[in-house]
């Protein structure tokens, strides 16, 4: 079969892989997801949005080498030691080379593991294709999953070098060095792309193994699986922020020489031997500064390091090819798991209270699904990213700490609502089981309440740790502590509101979305309800006094308790 035809066919296999990943991520909401994709064709292509977003991010990274190259000569002229300039140049470009695959992987891995599970190739294997063609198809499909990002990645460094030469370096460095800079940028980009692609194949396969591991119940497996997903989310959020910080701080770093030239030189020598990402970054920095200007050991180190990087790339590429070969073959096996024989005695029934059973079920579902994990992690991550991180890294501006606190409240509203939606979505899954079980909704609701105390409060309390260095903090402390009670109140009230608007039946309220009319409007009103509560408490505190706010919170809590008894009465099973 012609390569071009295979590449065309890879689109179908790729789309199948994306769909497979979406289904996996939807977890207990698969039925709802399928309903959504049937109506909305765009819902089938979330990968396109992520592809272009990551390509834009990778494109923005262009600023790092540009700023770094641009600062080198200015710093040397202002008297900064050559060792320090080499260190900052090597370090910042090294960071640039490190961020590239992070962005690539973070944005693509969700869909990559769908491709790496082997599922999309099963059907292809039943068609009359040569084994070699199926392998090629695997490579093409994988390339398709990252094509836009890889093309941008291939262009960023060479274009960055050319632009730097044109604007900053043209008059400072020789034509030979300019040529070396551009040629090496192209070589480096090519090697890096092969390296990143290979790493993505290997990682994707590992992740597919974790996600679809057959021994789903083991503790070790649970830890690996949850850890992988949490790490993925944390890396994705922090990477974006670190990039932002790195781009802001480069000129400051050049100017603030904080190490002696001798120490900087030792670090330079050590780092230059590191095959990835520093050997290339030191070669690029060395080309700009001039190879005869920097210590010979750094030059030797970076060249040796780069050769090692090429060897490493060849090694991981061949491993990636083997991996691709295995996933496109019909006898795919995720991991050689030793089958443990289960005896009759291994079946042991364990009974807990219904509330505990629901809590355990929710936790089990949440921690096994990407969507669920996001609902659990986002309430911590979003406030940290939006309100807490700026406190530590940036000036909080002329609006002061109080304004930042109000921003935190906004994130608490967002994340409370996410948690409400996430926790009630669980009820949409497992219909067969819940449909025929004598479920007391009161127990279901009770099991969800601890989640509102846990995750969001953690983010809220973290804010205080970061805000402590501001003088306003002590004024806000009492207010903040008295506002603490409002956080679970707004979450729980939002949960009741959702049950009231979506789950009203003839004789009772349920957590499932039964009344689906005006769905979007109900979601919007629900969000506004939570926002009014959250800012309402804050405004009462601000205008009428802290203790009055606390009093209103206590009254609200009592009211919530009454509503709880009314909506979810005690029933005998």
């Amino acid at each position: 079969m012609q390569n071009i035809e295979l590449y065309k066919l890879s689109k179908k296999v790729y789309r199948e892989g994306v769909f497979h990943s979406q289904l996996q991520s939807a977890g207990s909401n698969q039925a709802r997801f399928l309903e959504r994709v049937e109506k909305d064709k765009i819902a089938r292509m979330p990968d396109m949005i992520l592809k272009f977003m990551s390509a834009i991010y990778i494109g923005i990274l262009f600023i790092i080498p540009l700023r770094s190259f641009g600062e080198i000569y200015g710093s040397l002229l202002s008297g900064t030691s050559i060792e320090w300039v080499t260190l900052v140049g090597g370090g910042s470009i090294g960071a640039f080379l490190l961020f590239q695959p992070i962005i690539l992987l973070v944005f693509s891995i969700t869909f990559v593991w769908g491709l790496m599970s082997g599922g999309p190739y099963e059907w292809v294997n039943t068609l009359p294709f040569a084994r070699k063609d199926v392998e090629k198809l695997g490579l093409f499909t994988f390339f398709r999953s990252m094509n836009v990002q890889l093309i941008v990645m291939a262009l960023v460094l060479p274009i960055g070098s050319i632009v730097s030469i044109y604007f900053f370096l043209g008059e400072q460095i020789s034509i030979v060095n300019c040529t070396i800079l551009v040629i090496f940028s192209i070589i480096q980009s090519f090697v890096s792309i092969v390296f990143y692609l290979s790493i993505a194949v290997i990682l994707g396969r590992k992740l597919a193994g974790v996600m679809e591991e057959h021994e789903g119940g083991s503790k070790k497996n649970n830890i690996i699986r949850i850890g992988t997903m949490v790490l993925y989310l944390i890396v994705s959020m922090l990477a974006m922020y670190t990039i932002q910080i790195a781009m802001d701080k480069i000129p400051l770093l050049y100017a603030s020489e904080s190490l002696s030239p001798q120490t900087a030189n030792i670090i330079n020598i050590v780092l230059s031997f590191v095959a990835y990402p520093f050997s290339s970054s030191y070669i690029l920095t060395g080309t700009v500064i001039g190879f005869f200007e920097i210590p010979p050991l750094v030059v030797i180190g970076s060249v040796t390091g780069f050769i090692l990087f090429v060897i490493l790339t060849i090694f991981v590429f061949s491993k990636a090819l083997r991996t691709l070969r295995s996933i496109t073959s019909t006898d795919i096996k995720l991991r050689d798991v030793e089958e443990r024989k289960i005896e009759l005695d291994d079946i042991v029934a364990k009974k807990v209270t219904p509330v505990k059973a629901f809590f355990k079920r929710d936790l089990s579902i949440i921690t096994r699904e990407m969507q669920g994990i996001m609902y659990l992690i986002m309430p911590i991550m979003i406030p940290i990213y939006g309100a807490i991180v700026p406190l530590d890294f940036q000036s909080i501006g002329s609006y002061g700490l109080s304004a930042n606190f109000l921003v935190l409240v906004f994130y608490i509203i967002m994340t409370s609502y996410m948690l409400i939606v996430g926790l009630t979505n669980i009820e949409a899954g497992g219909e067969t089981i819940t449909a025929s079980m004598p479920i007391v909704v009161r127990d279901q609701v009770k099991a969800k309440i601890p989640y509102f105390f846990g995750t969001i409060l953690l983010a809220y309390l973290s804010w205080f740790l970061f805000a402590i260095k501001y003088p306003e903090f002590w004024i806000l402390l009492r207010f903040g502590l008295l506002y603490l009670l409002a956080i679970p109140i707004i979450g729980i009230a939002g949960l009741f509101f959702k049950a009231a608007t979506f789950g009203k039946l003839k004789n009772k309220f349920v957590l499932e979305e039964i009344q689906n009319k005006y769905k979007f409007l109900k979601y919007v009103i629900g969000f506004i309800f939570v926002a009014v509560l959250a800012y309402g408490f804050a405004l009462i505190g601000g205008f009428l006094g802290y203790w009055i706010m606390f009093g209103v919170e206590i009254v609200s809590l009592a009211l919530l308790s009454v509503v709880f008894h009314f909506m979810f009465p005690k029933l005998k099973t």
Partner: protein
Amino acid sequence: MKEEMNDEIITEKLEHIETDFIESNIEEGNGKNVVKVRNLTKSFGPVMAVNNVSFEVRKGEIFGLLGPNGAGKTTCVKLLLGLLEPDHGEIEVFGLDPGKDEITIKNNIGYVSEEPLIYKSMTPRQLFDFIISIRNLDEAEAQDKLRYYFDSLEALQYYDKLIATLSRGNKQKMQVIASLIHDPDLLIMDEPLTGLDAKSAKVVKEITELHTDRGGSVIFSTHILEVAEEVCDRIAIINHGKLVAIGTIEELSKMANKAGADLEDIFLRLTEQDESVNKIINDLRKMMKNNNKK
């Protein structure tokens, strides 16, 4: 020509027989009815899923709901469970209203759905611990039953696997076990044999029979005539949401013989599939003849 005439005669005869059968079977109900449905109607927008359906399920019987895909069987089952609210009509399960006495009813019902919508993110161990806790069952008793059912359905090796990774048939086994674990009085099984291997299907059929021998009742929904014929004591045939026939296999067979057709013909005619089936078969024959293997 002769065939067409025969068809007309059969259709004419059927029209009389149908009504008599439905009436006689519904009136036969007595105090031992587990389920009583009267003039049940449910529509989804313009689609009438269940249209004025009445039937009864007696204690100790396997009652079949037979009909083609999309006939309204699953909607009937969901209405019985209180998962859907009827537009019109009455439902009584154990003499109670599913809308009001849901908990009591569900304590005595086991349900196997057409699609195994069970928690895919759990292992059977976690799932059954959850069920035992929510149903407040005796640990030791539940454990014995679990061991028995897992062993007899040859599902032991899946006890610690993620449900998501199980085959359709094994997921179905989990559903079947979940429906039996609390020893319910009424089993509602919607296409329970889907995906099961021959051995497990035989075991499930045996379980339903043993269940009725002990005084339990079963509502067995299926679209496969042979299964209904083999398993059910009485059958209600549903088409386009309407009850078109109800009776024991003998009664339906008598009806078929009287009309000069076999049970399959009767089923296809009542469910208005006879013409389309004949057309498909004729087309297939033509196509196969034209594409003879060389």
